[in-house]
């Protein structure tokens, strides 16, 4: 009953117009033996007040960055989201409309998507952007598909070991059962070994996947990798952190052919991992192989500039099994959020944000490395906003659990991804973390080490 319109009187009138006696009769085309003969076994209906109490109770069972200083990263980041993003993206006209099949009454969404494509191109230094994909991980898989589909002979996919382990898992899932060989270059020092890249990439290589800043926060020498890749006529795919581009060279400047990213940091909350925003930008040559929606500019019959979905012959609803991808929905609302975020920050704001992350992360690395029990790992590599620490006592779990009691989400244990690193954890510092919080975390780790009772941040 929650949102229904038909009252019993309405139903009666409508049934009469249809010429049947009952709603039941409308389902007569479903064979009797295929029907459910009982009520679903589900919790009973809740009105809004009850539901609110229920969800509030569930939320109350979670700790969150609202209650704990969050030093977690690894692909999902506690960046600040300006209020204007929420205010604008929550307008009903944006979030209760759908794919702009009728451009005449969808110019709001279409223009916003065209602006998104423009912003992503400007941000990445690439020629083209689509109107978004699901998330950073599946966007990377789509990039590989696109590279494989360009017709270059090689079918081997080379992936650096510093790429997000979950992204690498996704590539395995997508491609190994198709018989496509994925060659992972193991990472020893938290950064790509150029000699190994040189050694691995060859004429059979279709594409090379690099992430920079990489999973450990390290900044890869993408330009050098690009040289190796292009020498072998392969495609360079770079997964990047959009916030880092406030400081770092852009994928397009470094020689990437396809650039993909997890874009939720641009104005969307962490939401326990999704929905997020898959960014994909590329060189012009991929224009008719791009997956997902693309918006183009054109004119209406009166010569007025306007925007439409375009190049739809790439897409599944036209081409079916010959489409470049099976993608149908995009992440329009989160592309919108990213656009609003970038429009609010502008070049200066993004640079400052990236700078704050870098400064604070480096301060934190120094500070936390001073804790007796901890030592920095991969200390020689340049990094952006994340770095790895080793618990010399080998009890990452215990250390982080105690820190949690003191009010910190202190880091991501790395043993879950790299068994050999189960004494390590990844620390992330965004612009939201204060010196006070960093100092308090260092103090807390020290206190835990010395066995003193901890104090809450």
């Amino acid at each position, binding site marked *: 009953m*929650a949102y229904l*319109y038909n009252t019993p009187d309405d139903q009666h*009138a*409508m049934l009469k*117009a249809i010429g049947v006696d009952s*709603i039941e009769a*409308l389902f007569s085309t479903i064979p009797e033996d295929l029907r*459910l003969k009982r009520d679903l*076994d589900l919790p009973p209906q809740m009105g809004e007040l009850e539901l609110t109490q229920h*969800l509030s109770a569930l*939320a109350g069972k979670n*700790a969150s960055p*609202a209650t704990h200083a969050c030093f977690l990263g690894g692909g*999902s980041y506690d960046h600040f989201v300006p209020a*204007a993003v929420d205010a*604008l993206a929550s307008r*009903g*006209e*944006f*979030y*209760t409309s759908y794919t702009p*099949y009728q*451009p005449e009454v969808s110019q709001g969404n279409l*223009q916003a998507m065209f602006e998104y*494509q*423009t912003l992503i*191109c*400007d941000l990445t230094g690439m020629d083209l952007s689509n109107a*978004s994909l*699901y998330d950073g991980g599946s966007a990377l898989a789509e990039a590989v598909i696109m590279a494989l589909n360009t017709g270059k002979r090689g079918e081997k996919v080379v992936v650096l070991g510093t790429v997000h382990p979950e992204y690498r898992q996704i590539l*395995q*899932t997508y491609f190994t059962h198709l018989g496509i060989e994925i060659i992972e270059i193991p990472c020893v020092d938290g950064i790509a070994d150029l000699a190994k890249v040189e050694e691995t990439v060859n004429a059979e290589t279709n594409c090379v996947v690099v992430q920079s800043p990489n999973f450990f926060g390290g900044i890869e020498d993408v330009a050098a990798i690009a040289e190796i890749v292009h020498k072998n006529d392969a495609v360079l795919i770079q997964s990047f952190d959009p916030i880092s581009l406030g400081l770092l*060279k*852009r994928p397009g400047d470094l020689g990437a052919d396809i650039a993909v990213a997890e874009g939720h940091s641009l104005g969307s*909350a*962490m*939401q*326990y*991992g*999704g*929905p997020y925003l898959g960014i994909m930008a590329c060189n012009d040559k991929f224009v008719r192989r791009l997956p997902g929606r693309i918006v183009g*500019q*054109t004119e*209406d*019959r009166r010569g007025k500039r306007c925007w439409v979905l*375009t190049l739809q012959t790439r897409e599944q*609803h036209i*081409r079916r099994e010959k489409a470049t991808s099976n993608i149908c929905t995009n992440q329009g*609302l989160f592309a*919108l959020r990213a656009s*609003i975020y*970038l429009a609010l*920050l*502008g070049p*200066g704001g993004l640079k400052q944000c990236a700078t*704050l992350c*870098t400064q604070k992360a480096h301060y934190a690395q120094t500070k936390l490395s001073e804790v007796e029990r901890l030592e920095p790992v991969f200390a020689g590599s*340049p990094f*952006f906003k994340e770095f790895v620490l080793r618990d010399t006592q080998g009890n990452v779990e215990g250390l982080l659990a105690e820190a949690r009691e003191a009010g910190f989400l202190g880091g991501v244990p790395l043993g879950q991804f790299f068994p050999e690193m189960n004494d390590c954890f990844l620390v992330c510092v965004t612009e939201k973390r204060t*010196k006070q919080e960093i100092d308090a975390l260092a103090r807390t780790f020290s206190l835990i080490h010395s066995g003193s009772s901890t104090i809450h941040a």
Partner: protein
Amino acid sequence: QATQLLSELSHPGRTAVTWPACDVPEQPIEDLIPGSYLSDKALQLPELTEGEVVRHYTNLSTKNMSVDTHYYPLGSCTMKYNPKRNERLASLPGIVDLHPYQDEATIQGMLQLLFELQGIFSEISGLPACSLQPAAGAHGELTALMVAAKYFKSIGEDRKVVLAPDSSHGTNPASAQMAGFKAVSIKSDPAGGVDMDDFRAKLTDDIAVLMITNPSTLGLFEKNMREIADAVHAKGGLVYLDGANMNAILGIARPGDFGADMMHYNPHKTFSGPHGGGGPGAGPICVADKLEPFLPSPVVVKDGENYKLNFDRPESIGRVRSFFGNVGVLVRAYCYILSHGPVGLREISENAVLNANYLLSQVKHFLPVPRGERCMHEFVASAGKLKQERGITAMDIGKRLLDYGFHAPTVYFPLTVPEAIMIEPTETESKETLDAFVQTLFRITEEDAELLHEAPHSTPISRPNEVQAARSPCLRANFCSS
């Protein structure tokens, strides 16, 4: 006001954001990151004040039709009302701000919700195992087909063919292709169902999966469903249900009961996830017991009083997405389902079907509905006769509806109906609105053909030149040939 692009509104020196001063001792940035890695170009992002950004996007928004503002009977998309409470609840602190790598001890409320939702989806589908990971319906299809592939591999079978009716969503063959299968199309019979002869002809021994949308995109329940499923199973194949049209059968029939081994949901359709101008959706899948080991990792399990993420799934296909999934969409689905309860869910479908049949009964008199007198939650009318007689196309009718304040139905899909007009009223529209829509539709069919060809007349733009857009693509500002 809002037709200028951000890049045109930009003005050097403006910004909307003031970051705090750096509170840690600052070091020259080159001391932290080698200069060769640092950008030497200024970013070309637009420079605007907060007020300008707000005005721009506020005005842009009003150029959209949306469920909140207009009746939106877009067939196959289930444009139902998106409850405001879901937006509020999905944005609660402790829900919206959780990091995906938080320790399980800190997210028991979230895991409880997701665990319960796995069970709810299984109960509604009649399929006992659930993965919440896929990011969209098409992603769910792909995931399920990968599960199927791994299943066949585990039993040592090499099957290559995926069958799908020609009226199916394009995602079906596209997903099959991506998953490494060969997509084969089955014809529809004159009544809109699966052509059983064609089906039998194509049901070879190497059938892997039959993908079926039931109720179909024509809004019909497949009358031979049981026979089809039995035949596929007899060949050792699996049946996949495209759940796009679950809005018609909640609590009335369960895919697991009528022969499906796998299915996906579209929570943004069936369970009121906002469509967001194109997304995000989510694509949770449910599967039969024998397929459970192959589902993506992790799944949520309950261990005594505690909820945990289970990664220890050696036969799993692995991951199809980073982190857990489109949790924000799933939370809304959970809220929607709890807002209804078992009886309420069935009422959703009853009223969706009632509304569709009522519309059908009114529309068929002036716009033929080739496939059947009765429908489920949507139906497909045809402007074929109108086109023949007066040159009026489905597109013309759709465009003209915009002038009257109605979003157009889906047109030209499914491909099996000429000049198809696919109308899905959803359960959250009133009889008054349906009546107004029918009257308008009728009025349009009586209007002058020229007027319709030129429609819409009162929208922010007239019909755009889509051919030009595709021929000389201009895909970003300041980079267009024209």
